[in-house]
């Protein structure tokens, strides 16, 4: 009985301690511009860039800043790496500081430099700058039975930085066109291979007519295609001028020009 009582007291004290030790958590409400940095550089040349960090919250907030390596799969999946990946260029990067305090409803500039060494070869240096709340945005507490979960939840914005070195460029080749399923919806796509030595993106739009005779525009997914990758990029229907979404009825006839950084593709196809 004594053991039961002590267990009871221990559990009560533990749970109360969890509650008592919790300080108010401020929401992570941060805006950062630009959302990504794409610059050109030469070996041995130092370039400087800056980010503008805005705190929308009602309380001062402190964010930590650090670089991360990242990988980007052909399926669009992103993985972050704290450790230096092979051929990482994060050692070329100098951050102004590792922590920045931004007052409520204010913004602050944050500078960083990239200095490729003189013997750096042509190619693309990619890394991310992670901007992360120092304090948790919310402390989530859950429980069931004798188990309690204490989950500090934090917010982070990752800004990709692309440095195209010594004239590195994408070189796109058009592949198969078809229809795949995205979020449960049939969606036209184009396949693009990047045979260059820097990332590239698709741009532009195609005229399209659905089986129901309705006309609309198809816009390519603007996510990057890294050197050596082959990706299926969705062609997404553009909303009508009054902001309404378009319900695509297959087959869809489509034609027009899709642009990439240093060229374009003429498309004239039927998506079934």
């Amino acid at each position, binding site marked *: 009985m004594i053991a039961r009582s002590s267990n009871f007291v221990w559990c009560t004290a533990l749970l109360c301690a969890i509650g008592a030790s919790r300080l*108010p958590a401020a*929401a992570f409400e941060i805006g950062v511009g630009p959302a990504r940095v794409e610059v050109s550089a030469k070996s041995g040349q130092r370039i400087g860039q800056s980010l503008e960090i805005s705190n929308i919250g009602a309380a001062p907030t402190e964010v930590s800043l650090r670089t991360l390596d990242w990988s980007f799969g052909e399926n669009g999946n992103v993985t972050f790496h704290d450790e230096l990946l092979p051929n990482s260029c994060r050692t070329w990067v100098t951050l102004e500081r590792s922590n920045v305090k931004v007052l409520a409803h204010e913004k602050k500039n944050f500078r960083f430099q990239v200095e490729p060494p003189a013997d750096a070869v042509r190619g693309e240096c990619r890394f991310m700058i992670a901007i992360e709340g120092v304090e948790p945005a919310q402390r989530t507490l859950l*429980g069931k039975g004798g188990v309690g979960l204490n989950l*500090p939840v934090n917010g*982070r*914005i990752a800004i990709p930085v692309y440095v195209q070195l010594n004239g590195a460029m994408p070189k796109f080749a058009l592949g198969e066109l078809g229809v795949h399923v995205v979020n449960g919806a049939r969606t036209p796509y184009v396949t693009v291979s990047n045979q260059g030595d820097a990332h590239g993106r698709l741009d532009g739009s195609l005229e399209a007519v659905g089986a129901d005779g309705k006309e609309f525009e198809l816009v390519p997914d603007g996510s990057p295609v890294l050197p050596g990758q082959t990706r299926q990029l969705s062609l997404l229907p553009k909303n009508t001028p009054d902001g309404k979404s378009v319900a695509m009825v297959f087959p869809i006839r489509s034609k027009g020009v899709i642009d990439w950084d240093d060229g374009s593709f003429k498309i004239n196809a039927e998506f079934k």
Partner: protein
Amino acid sequence: MTSPAKSITSWYGFAAMLAVLASMTDARADQTQVSAPVGNPNQTVSASAHLDFVINMGKFVFFRVGTGAYPTASATIDSVSFTLQPSIPASAATPVVGNNQNVSWNGTAPSFGTSATTVLPVEVRSNAGTISLTATASTLLTSGANTIPFSQVLVSSSDTANLPAPSIPNSGVGPVVTVVGTSFANLVTQRAANWTFSYSGSGAPAAGTYTGQITFTAMSP
């Protein structure tokens, strides 16, 4: 707590946000000078000049984790609010508040539970195209030497179609979910939702308080 419907403000607010975060507006003036001839100084003259505007709209990303009302300046400080719910065995009775309230007890230690779910408001705004979200298990769920896999913490979204919640991996970075753009051919994104955390509680982990950290990341690759 602000509901997603309330936190999604008008396009006027969004335009204001763009204006604040955009780069400086550059206006270039043209200059024209016209004079009346010397022989007819009273002649009516007119001049015209072009004023060309160049507006450089910078790309930005905004991410809110917690309660807020962007673009209205937030006045909310999140605080922890949970209620310990004692459960007295063997009938798992919850005692009635007040003095001298009887409840049968078989002598087994009562348990205390917190709420079964917790809601986390989130919001994403950007004009940079596709926004990807990931969840990272920054530290594992541990209580002393005991651990619980993060897969037992479930997250669901009030707007699964447009602002889905990324699943929490047992360690490292979880799979990407994409936020569906709202306008301008998916270049502009303005979404808000409530993500609800729950604990499946399967298995029979040792009693205790398990602590772990989750980080949600927004990016425009």
